[in-house]
């Protein structure tokens, strides 16, 4: 089988507050809502994902941190209760997900071929990280599309940001190759927040939106500058500025998901669609989509 393709990539951050605000049956704590603008942004993203009808969702999460290489979930079904270690009051979620093990193995092999240390996670009692679960719930609460989960190797923190992101670039290119070779129609999810400065105290109740706003103006300005470039399709400029953005806005994209996704997509210079932006405990979160399938169609029609 060949001719697989990446249909789209989404910037899909993972504050557990969004799941908490939505009150799905899987989540034990209940809220009076909150963070509506971001949750409605995800509603638009969900609709778009539904129209794409992908075979598989690939998600790279900063909360599965690995030291020895890049790891891939490799157990056909994983389930359990995910309790967020930082916000256990907001997120205690019963999950069950199916893994596309064949694609995960192909990604792992392609990453190894490209010179990375790559490993398959085969322990059935493994606890899937809360970043992966939150992003997947927000994008597809039905849990009916198989998943490939990738860890965040700590290279951007252990080495320099630039060296670390170079590894993520290699990982992205390898991921694309594996998708093409296995014939999958895939959607990529980069589970990253933008500006990551946050408040240190939670309001009571946590969903009191009168207390929610950007942590600081400089971080907000950085987010808007980057989003504006992404909306205009100025991908090269985004990546030129990325290390400075990471440094000055403490941006979570440092962990590599965003670079992995763009490398896999071939750094397309197409406008990203902003589904919405909002803050969560002061951090900046954008839900954005780069729809390659649509761009290819437009290209063919022109």
């Amino acid at each position, binding site marked *: 089988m060949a001719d697989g393709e990446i249909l789209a990539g989404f910037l899909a951050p993972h504050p557990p507050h969004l799941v908490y605000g939505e009150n799905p049956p899987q989540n034990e704590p209940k809220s009076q809502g909150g963070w509506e603008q971001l949750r409605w942004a995800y509603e638009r993203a969900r609709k778009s994902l539904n129209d794409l009808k992908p075979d598989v969702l690939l998600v790279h999460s900063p909360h599965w941190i690995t*030291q020895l290489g890049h790891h891939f979930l490799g157990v056909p079904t994983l389930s359990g209760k995910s309790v967020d270690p*930082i916000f256990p009051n907001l997120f205690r979620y019963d999950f069950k997900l199916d893994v596309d093990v064949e694609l995960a193995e192909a990604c792992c092999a392609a990453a190894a071929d490209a010179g990375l240390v790559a490993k398959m996670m085969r322990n059935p009692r493994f606890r899937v990280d809360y970043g992966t679960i939150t992003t997947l719930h927000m994008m597809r609460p039905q849990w009916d599309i198989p998943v490939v989960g990738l860890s965040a190797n700590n290279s951007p923190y252990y080495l320099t940001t630039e060296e670390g992101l170079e590894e993520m670039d290699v990982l992205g290119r390898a991921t694309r190759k594996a998708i093409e070779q296995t014939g999958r129609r895939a959607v990529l999810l980069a589970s990253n927040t933008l500006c990551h400065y946050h408040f*240190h105290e939670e309001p009571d109740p946590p969903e009191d939106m009168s207390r929610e706003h950007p942590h600081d103006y400089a971080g907000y300005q950085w987010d808007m500058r980057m989003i504006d470039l992404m909306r205009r399709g100025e991908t090269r400029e985004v990546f030129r500025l990325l290390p400075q953005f990471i440094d000055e806005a403490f941006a979570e994209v440092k962990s590599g998901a965003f670079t992995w996704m763009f490398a896999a997509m071939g750094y397309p210079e197409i406008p990203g669609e902003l589904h919405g932006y909002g803050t969560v405990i002061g951090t900046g979160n954008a839900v954005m989509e780069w729809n390659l399938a649509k761009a290819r169609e437009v290209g063919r029609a022109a």
Partner: protein
Amino acid sequence: MTVVSAFLVPGTPLPLLRPDNPPWAPLVAGYQAAGEALRASNPDVLLVYSTQWIAVLDELWQTRAHLTGIHVDENWYEYGDLPFDMQSDVELAEACVAGCKEIGVSAKTVDYDGFPIDTGTIVMNNFLNGDDARPLAIAANNVYHDGETTARLAAMAVETAKAQGKTVALIAVGGLSGTIFRTEIDIAEDHIADATDEEWNREMLRLMESASIEHLKQRAGDYAKAAKVDMGFKHLSWILGGLGDNFDGATVHAYGPVYGSGAAVVEFRPA
């Protein structure tokens, strides 16, 4: 005397999961010797700080009365599972939350089924507490706290235990030098990955043994930076804070490599 024993121990699961691997066997033996010393000191409670329990907002204290389950490490899952069965000293942990507020540190209790207990705490409990099942009061590592705040937390916790008439084993779970092998190694050939790290580790252990407390504190910051020490070596601050910057010396029960990083089992003699 409230603090009847004090230990700095590594939180990596590898020696527990592969005790027969020659480079790790000394750590296992060291952990066993520390466990015997702990039992001999007969504490009412283990007062624990683990670098791997990361908190971001508040200082968190575990208050779930009974913690049991099977944990799988996110890095070393292929080496096996980590079953655990622990009791919390809820009364002490709750009093520590109140005590935090008195010293200006915002704090919260954690009492949730399925809350992810960190690998370091589980490894320590398996080695040191074993079947005794003495209760624990476990504090998180808030990443925004510096060494000084960590020391104040430990001092407050010891005072709180004293007010409850309890004796404690003071325990800090964390590693030494942090340079690791980033490609697969033959674990039977494991060694400290960086020669400078090795010198630094040995110097710090000598300062602990000789109770050169001022010198130890002076060098800790430089050591943390130069040798990529786990969490800036805040676990040492937990020990020093809990001991009131005063101890008579230390026994290094073991020192060795774990995938290139440094690990030691150290027992401090409270003054």
